[in-house]
Protein backbone atom coordinates (compact mmCIF):
# COMPACT_ATOMS: atom_id res chain seq x y z
CA UNK A 1 0.00 0.00 0.00
CA UNK A 2 1.29 3.55 -0.72
CA UNK A 3 2.03 5.77 2.30
CA UNK A 4 -1.06 7.51 3.68
CA UNK A 5 -1.27 11.32 3.48
CA UNK A 6 -0.38 13.12 6.71
CA UNK A 7 -3.99 13.91 7.75
CA UNK A 8 -5.13 10.29 7.38
CA UNK A 9 -1.95 8.90 8.95
CA UNK A 10 -2.24 11.38 11.84
CA UNK A 11 -5.52 9.80 12.96
CA UNK A 12 -3.94 6.33 13.16
CA UNK A 13 -0.82 7.61 14.95
CA UNK A 14 -2.97 9.58 17.43
CA UNK A 15 -5.12 6.49 18.01
CA UNK A 16 -2.05 4.30 18.70
CA UNK A 17 -0.48 6.79 21.13
CA UNK A 18 -3.94 7.40 22.65
CA UNK A 19 -4.32 3.67 23.38
CA UNK A 20 -0.92 3.65 25.09
CA UNK A 21 -1.71 6.77 27.14
CA UNK A 22 -5.16 5.45 28.09
CA UNK A 23 -3.67 2.17 29.30
CA UNK A 24 -1.08 3.93 31.46
CA UNK A 25 -3.64 6.38 32.89
CA UNK A 26 -6.11 3.54 33.60
CA UNK A 27 -3.42 1.45 35.26
CA UNK A 28 -2.18 4.32 37.44
CA UNK A 29 -5.81 5.22 38.27
CA UNK A 30 -6.59 1.67 39.43
CA UNK A 31 -3.41 1.47 41.53
CA UNK A 32 -4.17 4.96 42.90
CA UNK A 33 -7.68 3.90 43.97
CA UNK A 34 -6.19 0.85 45.69
CA UNK A 35 -3.71 3.03 47.56
CA UNK A 36 -6.58 5.33 48.63
CA UNK A 37 -8.38 2.26 50.00
CA UNK A 38 -5.23 1.25 51.90
CA UNK A 39 -5.01 4.76 53.39
CA UNK A 40 -8.65 4.51 54.51
CA UNK A 41 -8.00 1.11 56.08
CA UNK A 42 -4.91 2.49 57.81
CA UNK A 43 -7.01 5.28 59.31
CA UNK A 44 -9.56 2.76 60.60
CA UNK A 45 -6.75 0.66 62.10
CA UNK A 46 -5.32 3.73 63.83
CA UNK A 47 -8.77 4.35 65.27
CA UNK A 48 -8.94 0.74 66.48
CA UNK A 49 -5.56 1.06 68.20
CA UNK A 50 -6.57 4.38 69.79
CA UNK A 51 -9.77 2.81 71.17
CA UNK A 52 -7.95 -0.25 72.54
CA UNK A 53 -5.41 2.04 74.27
CA UNK A 54 -8.17 3.88 76.14
Amino acid at each position, binding site marked *: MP*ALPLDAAGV*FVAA*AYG*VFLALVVLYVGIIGS*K*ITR*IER*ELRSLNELVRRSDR
Partner: protein
Amino acid sequence: MFGKGFAPLSILTAVAVAAAAAMVFFYAPLDADQGFIQKIFYVHVPMAIVGLLGFVAGGIFGFQHLRSGDRAHDLRSYVAIHLSIVLAVGVLATGAIWAKASWGHWWVWSEPMLTSYLIIFLLYCCYQPLRFSIEDPDRQARAASVFAVTAGVFVPVNFMAVRAVESVTHPRVLSTAGSGMPAEMAVTFLVSLVAMALLFATLWKLELSGKQAAIELRRLRARLELDAERSEPLADARPAPGAAAVPAGQ
Protein backbone atom coordinates in the same frame (compact mmCIF):
# COMPACT_ATOMS: atom_id res chain seq x y z
CA MET B 1 10.43 -2.78 51.26
CA PHE B 2 9.43 -2.32 47.59
CA GLY B 3 9.05 1.47 47.65
CA LYS B 4 12.77 2.19 48.07
CA GLY B 5 14.13 4.43 45.31
CA PHE B 6 10.65 5.01 43.86
CA ALA B 7 10.88 8.83 43.70
CA PRO B 8 14.14 9.06 41.67
CA LEU B 9 12.95 6.24 39.41
CA SER B 10 9.67 8.01 38.62
CA ILE B 11 11.50 11.30 37.88
CA LEU B 12 13.92 9.45 35.57
CA THR B 13 10.95 7.75 33.86
CA ALA B 14 9.12 11.05 33.33
CA VAL B 15 12.26 12.59 31.79
CA ALA B 16 12.87 9.54 29.57
CA VAL B 17 9.25 9.39 28.35
CA ALA B 18 9.25 13.13 27.59
CA ALA B 19 12.59 12.81 25.75
CA ALA B 20 11.33 9.82 23.75
CA ALA B 21 8.11 11.64 22.75
CA ALA B 22 10.09 14.73 21.69
CA MET B 23 12.53 12.62 19.64
CA VAL B 24 9.74 10.63 17.97
CA PHE B 25 7.90 13.73 16.73
CA PHE B 26 10.69 16.31 16.31
CA TYR B 27 13.94 14.42 15.68
CA ALA B 28 13.32 11.09 13.93
CA PRO B 29 12.94 11.50 10.15
CA LEU B 30 9.82 10.37 8.28
CA ASP B 31 10.08 6.87 6.85
CA ALA B 32 10.52 6.93 3.05
CA ASP B 33 8.16 4.00 2.56
CA GLN B 34 5.46 4.36 5.25
CA GLY B 35 5.61 8.08 5.97
CA PHE B 36 4.08 9.41 9.21
CA ILE B 37 2.41 6.05 10.05
CA GLN B 38 5.82 4.63 10.92
CA LYS B 39 5.77 6.75 14.15
CA ILE B 40 3.62 3.97 15.65
CA PHE B 41 6.74 1.80 15.54
CA TYR B 42 8.31 3.79 18.45
CA VAL B 43 5.48 2.84 20.82
CA HIS B 44 4.45 -0.56 19.43
CA VAL B 45 7.85 -2.31 19.28
CA PRO B 46 9.26 -1.13 22.67
CA MET B 47 5.94 -2.14 24.29
CA ALA B 48 6.18 -5.60 22.67
CA ILE B 49 9.82 -6.12 23.70
CA VAL B 50 9.34 -4.89 27.29
CA GLY B 51 6.10 -6.93 27.61
CA LEU B 52 7.85 -10.13 26.52
CA LEU B 53 10.80 -9.44 28.83
CA GLY B 54 8.29 -8.85 31.64
CA PHE B 55 6.81 -12.32 31.05
CA VAL B 56 10.32 -13.81 31.16
CA ALA B 57 11.08 -11.83 34.35
CA GLY B 58 7.86 -13.24 35.85
CA GLY B 59 9.19 -16.73 35.10
CA ILE B 60 12.57 -15.94 36.71
CA PHE B 61 10.87 -14.62 39.88
CA GLY B 62 8.60 -17.68 39.85
CA PHE B 63 11.67 -19.91 39.71
CA GLN B 64 13.25 -18.00 42.60
CA HIS B 65 10.04 -18.46 44.60
CA LEU B 66 10.00 -22.22 43.94
CA ARG B 67 13.66 -22.47 44.95
CA SER B 68 13.57 -20.32 48.09
CA GLY B 69 9.91 -20.41 49.15
CA ASP B 70 10.09 -16.63 49.67
CA ARG B 71 6.62 -15.18 48.98
CA ALA B 72 8.15 -11.81 47.98
CA HIS B 73 9.41 -13.46 44.78
CA ASP B 74 5.90 -14.73 44.02
CA LEU B 75 4.56 -11.21 44.47
CA ARG B 76 7.25 -9.87 42.11
CA SER B 77 6.35 -12.54 39.55
CA TYR B 78 2.62 -11.81 39.83
CA VAL B 79 3.05 -8.06 39.33
CA ALA B 80 5.50 -8.50 36.41
CA ILE B 81 3.04 -10.80 34.61
CA HIS B 82 0.07 -8.57 35.41
CA LEU B 83 1.83 -5.52 34.00
CA SER B 84 3.04 -7.44 30.94
CA ILE B 85 -0.56 -8.48 30.18
CA VAL B 86 -1.53 -4.78 30.21
CA LEU B 87 1.35 -4.03 27.81
CA ALA B 88 0.32 -6.97 25.62
CA VAL B 89 -3.17 -5.44 25.28
CA GLY B 90 -1.45 -2.25 24.13
CA VAL B 91 0.76 -4.17 21.67
CA LEU B 92 -2.22 -5.94 20.09
CA ALA B 93 -4.23 -2.71 19.86
CA THR B 94 -1.42 -0.56 18.44
CA GLY B 95 -0.40 -3.42 16.12
CA ALA B 96 -3.94 -3.65 14.75
CA ILE B 97 -4.03 0.12 14.19
CA TRP B 98 -0.68 0.02 12.40
CA ALA B 99 -1.74 -2.99 10.32
CA LYS B 100 -4.94 -1.25 9.22
CA ALA B 101 -3.01 1.87 8.22
CA SER B 102 -0.23 0.13 6.31
CA TRP B 103 -1.69 -3.20 5.13
CA GLY B 104 -5.37 -2.24 4.95
CA HIS B 105 -6.43 -4.99 7.42
CA TRP B 106 -6.85 -4.89 11.21
CA TRP B 107 -5.48 -8.41 11.54
CA VAL B 108 -3.60 -10.82 9.26
CA TRP B 109 -3.90 -14.41 10.49
CA SER B 110 -1.18 -15.68 8.14
CA GLU B 111 1.38 -13.44 9.81
CA PRO B 112 3.38 -15.54 12.35
CA MET B 113 4.53 -12.61 14.50
CA LEU B 114 0.98 -11.38 15.13
CA THR B 115 -0.54 -14.80 15.72
CA SER B 116 2.27 -15.93 18.03
CA TYR B 117 1.94 -12.76 20.11
CA LEU B 118 -1.79 -13.39 20.40
CA ILE B 119 -1.09 -16.97 21.53
CA ILE B 120 1.31 -15.70 24.22
CA PHE B 121 -1.28 -13.13 25.34
CA LEU B 122 -4.03 -15.75 25.53
CA LEU B 123 -1.70 -18.11 27.40
CA TYR B 124 -1.03 -15.46 30.06
CA CYS B 125 -4.74 -14.61 30.25
CA CYS B 126 -5.05 -18.01 31.98
CA TYR B 127 -2.61 -16.97 34.72
CA GLN B 128 -5.01 -14.95 36.87
CA PRO B 129 -7.98 -17.39 36.71
CA LEU B 130 -5.57 -20.22 37.59
CA ARG B 131 -4.06 -18.27 40.45
CA PHE B 132 -7.31 -17.13 42.02
CA SER B 133 -9.06 -20.48 41.62
CA ILE B 134 -6.83 -21.83 44.41
CA GLU B 135 -7.74 -20.63 47.89
CA ASP B 136 -4.79 -21.87 49.93
CA PRO B 137 -2.16 -19.07 49.65
CA ASP B 138 0.85 -21.41 49.62
CA ARG B 139 -0.61 -23.72 46.97
CA GLN B 140 -1.76 -20.67 45.01
CA ALA B 141 1.75 -19.19 44.99
CA ARG B 142 3.32 -22.54 44.05
CA ALA B 143 0.92 -23.22 41.17
CA ALA B 144 1.30 -19.65 39.89
CA SER B 145 5.11 -19.96 40.00
CA VAL B 146 5.04 -23.25 38.09
CA PHE B 147 2.85 -21.58 35.46
CA ALA B 148 5.13 -18.52 35.33
CA VAL B 149 8.24 -20.67 34.82
CA THR B 150 6.66 -22.90 32.15
CA ALA B 151 5.12 -20.01 30.21
CA GLY B 152 8.27 -17.91 30.74
CA VAL B 153 10.32 -20.60 28.97
CA PHE B 154 7.72 -20.74 26.18
CA VAL B 155 8.11 -17.02 25.40
CA PRO B 156 11.73 -17.02 24.06
CA VAL B 157 11.23 -20.44 22.42
CA ASN B 158 8.17 -19.09 20.63
CA PHE B 159 10.06 -15.93 19.64
CA MET B 160 12.92 -17.96 18.14
CA ALA B 161 10.50 -20.25 16.29
CA VAL B 162 8.80 -17.23 14.73
CA ARG B 163 12.17 -15.74 13.75
CA ALA B 164 13.04 -19.02 12.05
CA VAL B 165 9.99 -18.64 9.82
CA GLU B 166 10.60 -16.41 6.83
CA SER B 167 8.10 -13.61 7.17
CA VAL B 168 7.00 -11.67 4.14
CA THR B 169 4.99 -8.91 5.75
CA HIS B 170 6.12 -8.13 9.29
CA PRO B 171 9.30 -6.03 9.36
CA ARG B 172 12.28 -7.17 11.46
CA VAL B 173 13.67 -4.55 13.77
CA LEU B 174 16.38 -6.40 15.65
CA SER B 175 18.72 -8.70 13.81
CA THR B 176 22.40 -9.61 13.86
CA ALA B 177 22.79 -7.98 10.43
CA GLY B 178 21.71 -4.60 11.86
CA SER B 179 18.35 -2.87 11.87
CA GLY B 180 18.77 -1.14 8.50
CA MET B 181 17.44 2.07 10.06
CA PRO B 182 19.05 5.51 9.72
CA ALA B 183 21.03 6.50 12.83
CA GLU B 184 18.39 9.06 13.94
CA MET B 185 15.66 6.42 13.84
CA ALA B 186 17.83 3.86 15.67
CA VAL B 187 18.70 6.35 18.45
CA THR B 188 15.03 7.37 18.81
CA PHE B 189 14.03 3.73 18.98
CA LEU B 190 16.64 3.00 21.68
CA VAL B 191 15.51 6.01 23.76
CA SER B 192 11.88 4.83 23.40
CA LEU B 193 12.89 1.34 24.48
CA VAL B 194 14.71 2.65 27.56
CA ALA B 195 11.74 4.91 28.40
CA MET B 196 9.34 1.96 28.12
CA ALA B 197 11.59 -0.21 30.30
CA LEU B 198 11.78 2.57 32.92
CA LEU B 199 7.99 3.01 32.79
CA PHE B 200 7.57 -0.72 33.33
CA ALA B 201 9.98 -0.64 36.31
CA THR B 202 8.16 2.36 37.84
CA LEU B 203 4.69 0.86 37.49
CA TRP B 204 5.99 -2.50 38.72
CA LYS B 205 7.42 -0.85 41.84
CA LEU B 206 4.23 1.18 42.36
CA GLU B 207 1.99 -1.88 42.25
CA LEU B 208 4.40 -3.93 44.38
CA SER B 209 4.47 -1.23 47.09
CA GLY B 210 0.67 -1.04 47.09
CA LYS B 211 0.31 -4.83 47.30
CA GLN B 212 2.93 -5.08 50.05
CA ALA B 213 1.19 -2.33 52.06
CA ALA B 214 -2.17 -4.12 51.66
CA ILE B 215 -0.66 -7.41 52.87
CA GLU B 216 0.97 -5.75 55.90
CA LEU B 217 -2.31 -3.99 56.73
CA ARG B 218 -4.27 -7.24 56.58
CA ARG B 219 -1.70 -8.87 58.86
CA LEU B 220 -1.85 -5.95 61.29
CA ARG B 221 -5.65 -5.95 61.34
CA ALA B 222 -5.77 -9.70 62.03
CA ARG B 223 -3.27 -9.29 64.86
CA LEU B 224 -5.15 -6.35 66.39
CA GLU B 225 -8.45 -8.20 66.21
CA LEU B 226 -6.83 -11.25 67.81
CA ASP B 227 -5.41 -9.07 70.60
CA ALA B 228 -8.84 -7.50 71.13
CA GLU B 229 -10.47 -10.94 71.32
CA ARG B 230 -7.88 -12.12 73.85
CA SER B 231 -8.30 -9.09 76.08
CA GLU B 232 -12.11 -9.24 76.06
CA PRO B 233 -12.50 -12.49 78.12
CA LEU B 234 -10.00 -11.06 80.63
CA ALA B 235 -12.06 -7.90 80.92
CA ASP B 236 -15.22 -10.00 81.40
CA ALA B 237 -13.53 -12.08 84.14
CA ARG B 238 -12.44 -8.98 86.06
CA PRO B 239 -14.85 -8.27 88.98
CA ALA B 240 -17.09 -5.29 88.57
CA PRO B 241 -16.20 -2.39 90.87
CA GLY B 242 -17.93 -2.83 94.24
CA ALA B 243 -18.75 -6.54 93.72
CA ALA B 244 -17.61 -9.02 96.39
CA ALA B 245 -14.67 -11.17 95.40
CA VAL B 246 -15.49 -14.86 95.14
CA PRO B 247 -12.94 -16.89 97.10
CA ALA B 248 -11.30 -19.71 95.21
CA GLY B 249 -12.81 -23.15 95.71
CA GLN B 250 -16.42 -22.03 96.09
